[in-house]
């Protein structure tokens, strides 16, 4: 039977050098799809939840979805699934570009990397051949230079690598691919560094994936592409302005966290907006594999042409650090990519450090000549580089994230994080539903596990009142479940501005030969969300880890359009657990039985 799965995984043990080919368990693949879902299931079953995340016992799963590399729109995605050293819970970091599609074309659904190499190593995949090679010539190089040198060594390959931040095991280290695409969150780059694994190069001869039903996939793809083209967001707003267009929208709702969330309206936000970026440093937009949206930004930083900032770093380095110097943000974002740092958590940690400095907990003599002052262009650029280097004592501390930094100074409440991972760019006091997403995200503070900004602010698929709690728990569950499906199929979440469960169902059924209905597919998403929660439970997660920082529940927004608002998470969280069939943050026996997750 033809299917868009390759049906094959490689298990690579870096301690022994053994490389084993394994067949994909199709029953598991049907139950968990691929990508995020299947990666988590594999790690859960193999007992990874209880290991030390930076030890040889942790495993890294680089996993595509059944639609990765197919003709489906936005099919360039893959996932890195592992136990996070930042949160101590599940990490599944998604990235675009073309590397994931190339891994699929080379004949693999996933690479499972185990153990620890005795010396710096990289994995070279050329179709069905996999070898381990010495990375001694590439260690210490910035991500982009390592990418270029590896391409010289293996012409025609695509490169995934870590920068210096991953090498020194910064808990904010990202995994980079195709130079400026990142599996950015939860410190997945540190896990790679802990295994002495610098890079994975992939060269593939094939250029297509044969689906179960080529005609049906063609038909479904055509319908999806039309919807994406006709949709105002995916066909107009995103290609023209990128995600950066959100700066002005979110700021005008008074939900744009400013100065480490002490305020939530930034009067200079327009200086760092998508509109301003388009008029100043933008060279062109860029697309990932088979993406009709092309939201990526290519910009000028000095005389270099590099990948530009998304909305998140524009906010995190901008308003959240009290700064409106777009050029400095572009440069700091470039250094995140070069050193291989999470471009959300890194600037959020700088913002937390600025608050600690403002309040006198971080002393001037710790700053080595570059004070952590609100609005300092020099501070955001140089402290990013210092965190990337990880040498200066304070920078080394900051490179492990805001929670550990603030805890070190006796004030963990200044860390605007959930499960020790920094929250992104939407104030959950002004937008109630997104607070449920933050609090209950299995990978910690995150917006892309249930993007309620879509209905609460953007009016998609319908406009909700951002200030109310009614019905938000149910919305959150549906968004979380659908997102789990998209992440597991190997498609981009941004396609969901135009597509819904029926479209994803049509694509998946045509690709793999399943017969899911949209409702059944959402149940698969629910199963994935629950297996992640089971992983976290096994990893030691406690019910109190589903919480928002005190600032959101005790300090009303101080000024701007949402002045006086506060998170109602105490109302919505019990509603959410009820909708999910969870008690005290974990699935009940009945829920597990219903989802086929009983043990």
């Amino acid at each position, binding site marked *: 039977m033809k299917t868009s799965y390759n049906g094959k995984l490689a298990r690579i043990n870096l301690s022994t050098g053994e490389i084993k080919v394994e067949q994909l368990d199709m029953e598991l693949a049907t139950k968990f799809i691929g990508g995020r879902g299947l990666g988590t299931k594999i790690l859960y079953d193999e007992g990874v939840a209880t290991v030390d995340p930076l030890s040889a016992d942790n495993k890294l799963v680089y996993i595509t979805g059944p639609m990765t590399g197919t003709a489906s729109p936005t099919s360039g995605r893959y996932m890195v699934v592992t136990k996070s050293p930042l949160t101590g819970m599940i990490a599944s970091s998604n990235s675009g570009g073309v590397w994931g599609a190339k891994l699929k074309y080379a004949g693999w659904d996933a690479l499972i990397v185990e153990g620890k190499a005795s010396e710096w190593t990289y994995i070279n995949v050329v179709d069905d051949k996999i070898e381990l090679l010495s990375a001694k010539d590439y260690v210490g190089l910035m991500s982009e230079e390592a990418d270029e040198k590896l391409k010289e060594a293996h012409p025609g390959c695509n490169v995934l690598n870590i920068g210096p931040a991953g090498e020194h095991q910064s808990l904010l280290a990202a995994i980079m691919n195709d130079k400026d695409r990142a599996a950015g969150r939860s410190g997945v780059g540190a896990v790679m560094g802990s295994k002495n694994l610098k890079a994975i190069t992939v060269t593939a001869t094939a250029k297509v994936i044969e689906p179960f039903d080529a005609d049906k996939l063609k038909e479904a793809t055509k319908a999806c592409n039309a919807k994406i083209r006709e*949709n*105002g*967001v995916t066909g*107009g*707003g*995103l290609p*023209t*302005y*990128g*995600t*950066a*267009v*959100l700066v*002005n*929208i979110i700021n*005008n*709702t*008074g939900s744009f966290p400013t100065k480490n969330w002490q305020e939530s309206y930034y009067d200079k936000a*327009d200086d760092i907006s*998508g*509109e301003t970026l388009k008029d100043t440093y933008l060279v062109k937009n860029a697309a990932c594999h088979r993406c009709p949206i092309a*939201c990526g930004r290519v910009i000028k930083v000095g005389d270099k042409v590099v990948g530009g900032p*998304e*909305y998140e770093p524009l906010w995190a380095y901008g308003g959240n650090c009290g700064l409106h110097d777009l050029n400095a943000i572009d440069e700091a974002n470039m250094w995140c990519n070069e050193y291989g740092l999470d471009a959300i958590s890194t600037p959020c940690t700088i913002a937390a450090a600025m608050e600690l400095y403002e309040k006198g907990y971080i002393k001037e003599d710790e700053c080595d000549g570059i004070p952590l002052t609100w609005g300092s262009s020099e501070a955001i650029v140089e402290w990013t580089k210092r965190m990337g280097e990880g040498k200066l004592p304070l920078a080394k501390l900051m490179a492990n994230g805001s929670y550990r930094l603030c805890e070190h100074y006796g004030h963990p409440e200044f860390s605007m994080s959930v499960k020790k991972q920094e929250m992104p760019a939407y104030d959950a006091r002004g937008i109630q539903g997104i607070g449920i997403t933050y609090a209950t995200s299995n990978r910690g503070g995150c*917006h*892309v596990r249930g*993007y309620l*900004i*879509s209905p609460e*602010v*953007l*009016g*998609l698929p319908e*406009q909700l*009142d*951002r*200030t109310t709690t009614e019905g938000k728990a149910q919305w959150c569950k549906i968004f979380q479940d659908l997102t789990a499906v998209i992440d597991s199929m190997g498609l981009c*979440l*941004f396609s969901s*501005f135009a597509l819904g469960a029926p479209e994803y169902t049509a694509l998946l059924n045509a690709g793999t030969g399943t017969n899911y209905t949209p409702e059944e597919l959402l149940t698969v998403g629910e199963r994935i969300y629950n297996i992640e929660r089971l992983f976290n439970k096994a990893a030691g997660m406690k019910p109190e880890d589903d919480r928002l920082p005190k600032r959101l529940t005790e300090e009303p927004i101080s000024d*701007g*359009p*949402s002045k006086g608002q506060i998170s109602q998470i105490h109302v919505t969280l019990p509603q959410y657990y009820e909708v999910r069939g969870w008690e005290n943050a974990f699935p009940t026996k009945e829920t597990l039985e219903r989802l086929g997750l009983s043990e």
Partner: protein
Amino acid sequence: MIEVRLFATFREGREKIVYFEPTKAACPADVLDELGIPYEEVAICLINGFHSGLRDAIKDKDVLALFPPVGGG
């Protein structure tokens, strides 16, 4: 005065911010008529930061923010 903030493509050929006498604009639709923006092009209409309909009342010192379909994540 009513402050009208324009974003994304609404800025093309227009100022970022325009002001209206309250007597000239009783609701966002009046503002759109004056600016020559078709109603169907407006995806997000905020009055003082809160989502509003095109026929909702606006008054002196209000801030009106208008966006075409845009989004991100």
